[in-house]
């Protein structure tokens, strides 16, 4: 009796998950193939999924309009720098909140949470002036530093750390390790999956960010890819063809990276299962 029931629900699960996968894939596939359409093909009526005529024209147009490679380099430095720094700082702070007791911990944690509640648009102008006063406008450091830690990351790391068994650092303490060694040698390796997932999160967010890098850079040569590509989305006239190609260009490195990381990521989850 129960076997039958399980089978039915398993089938339902497969149907449901596959349907969802199709829903997820179709728009992204459409974006991919549509970036090879001609201008006329993109706005054709009645619309068609595949292009009638495949063309690289839109990509060439984007390549002519903006310095893609320079912008890609800027984006890698910006998103990469932010990711590395904030992984370090976020996990340190998260660890302190989750595994250490100190005066004001609850208050501090609440204050950090509060910083998530500020819409970025509103602190933008004061931030611009601040970065200017530090003479960091239009520099990589000025782009990276304000983003080098985030309340989200701290919160995420702390909730991950608090899920780990409490006996772990006790054994380290008994061995006489320093707090930093415990953090480095015992705790950090355990949170590889969380670090990878937070790293991807930070990298993608900063890679895709538009307003922030646009505000803090003042020349095209310092601009990041997505901020640079925004220029192609017309003001009075939207050119859909180049817009789609530009979207694919900014997406492609992330997709490649994601496919690469995803493997690492699921493996990380599998091996870090607590063996107790």
């Amino acid at each position: 009796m129960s076997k039958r029931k399980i089978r039915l629900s398993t089938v339902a699960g497969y149907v449901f998950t596959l349907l969802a996968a199709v829903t997820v894939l179709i728009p992204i596939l459409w974006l991919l193939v549509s970036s090879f359409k001609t201008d006329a093909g993109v706005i054709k009526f009645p619309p068609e999924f595949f292009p009638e005529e495949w063309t690289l024209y839109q990509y060439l147009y984007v390549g002519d309009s903006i310095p893609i490679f320079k912008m890609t380099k800027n984006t890698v430095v910006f998103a990469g720098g932010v990711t590395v720094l904030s992984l370090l700082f976020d996990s340190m702070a998260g660890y302190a909140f989750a595994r250490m007791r100190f005066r004001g911990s609850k208050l501090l944690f609440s204050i950090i949470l509060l910083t998530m509640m500020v819409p970025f648009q509103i602190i933008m102008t004061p931030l611009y002036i601040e970065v200017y006063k530090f003479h960091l406008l239009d520099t990589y450091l000025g782009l990276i530093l304000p983003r080098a830690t985030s309340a989200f990351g701290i919160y995420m790391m702390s909730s991950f750390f608090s899920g780990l068994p409490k006996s772990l650092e006790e054994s380290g303490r008994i061995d006489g390790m320093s707090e930093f060694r415990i953090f480095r040698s015992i705790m950090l390796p355990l949170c590889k999956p969380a670090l990878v997932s937070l790293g991807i999160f930070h990298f993608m967010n900063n890679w895709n960010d538009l307003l922030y890098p646009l505000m803090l850079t003042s020349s095209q040569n310092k601009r990041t890819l997505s901020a640079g590509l925004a220029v192609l989305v017309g003001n009075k006239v939207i050119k859909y063809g180049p817009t789609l190609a530009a979207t694919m260009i900014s997406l492609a490195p992330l997709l490649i990276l994601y496919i690469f990381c995803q493997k690492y990521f699921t493996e990380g989850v599998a091996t870090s299962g607590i063996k107790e």
Partner: protein
Amino acid sequence: MEKNKGKRKKYVAHNQKCAYLFLLPSMFILSVFVFVPLIASFVISITNMNIFMKDVSFAGLKNFIQLFKDSRVSNATFNSLYFTLLEVPLQIGLALLMTVCLAKNNRYCKLLRSIYYLPFVCSMTAIGIVWSMLLDPNMGLFAYWLKQAGFDTIAFLKDPKWAMPTVIAVTAWKGFGYTLTLMAAAVLNIPQSLYEAADMDGAGGFQKFIHITIPGIWSTISFCIVTSTIGAMQMFDQAYVMTQGGPLNKTETVVQYIYDRGFQTAPYNLGYASAISVYLFVIVAVMTLVLRKFVLNRGEGADE
């Protein structure tokens, strides 16, 4: 628990210093680049100031009085709440449901989890452009397919009634894969022995889900609820790209109205925009406090 408390007290003094050291970099960056601008905008909210930052004068509570009379503020508040109250449960519910099906480490589950994660990789701008093109009632592929299939189509983003639900659906579509990944990771970390013990007790699949899985990943769930609620209350990008707040201001959120007052519409009233953001800040802070109290208490209760 009680035993641990006694033991841990010994470490408190030593820990204290270490803890502050661990916190130092983050606190420094957050204070300089978030708190200072935040305090600046609090101060700006009680002044008459536009983005040109000339002729600043003290306004007292004028901006706050004005915002409570402004019908677009109440409209935007309603829209933000509407979005949050539907989007967060939808995204987390969907992810939980998927977790039940996909929290295994076989090939199929891994592949599907990766697929679901895909939209999250894309920028909201890209997603917004793609969906608004596909759903365009006149030229869009999906709208066309639906029409061909004989459905009486709705205008999606163009219909005042359906615009917000469409924005919600697209947001959940983009985000559920990420939530799923977090939850699946948490589920896979639950010791297998717990399930084996439950099997011996003769527990069914649903009972195991309620009594083992949910408590086991509660800290992740509560993290997801709190962060997505905070994020949803600040919804901006989606509406900015897909609807610009329309039709008839039905998708205009609080942040969007802040942006409009401060940066899009002359006289670029930064004082007023800041006042609205203080108002939003208070709403979100209260919501988060309530949520944390409610969500965390339940979590701890489930832990015991």
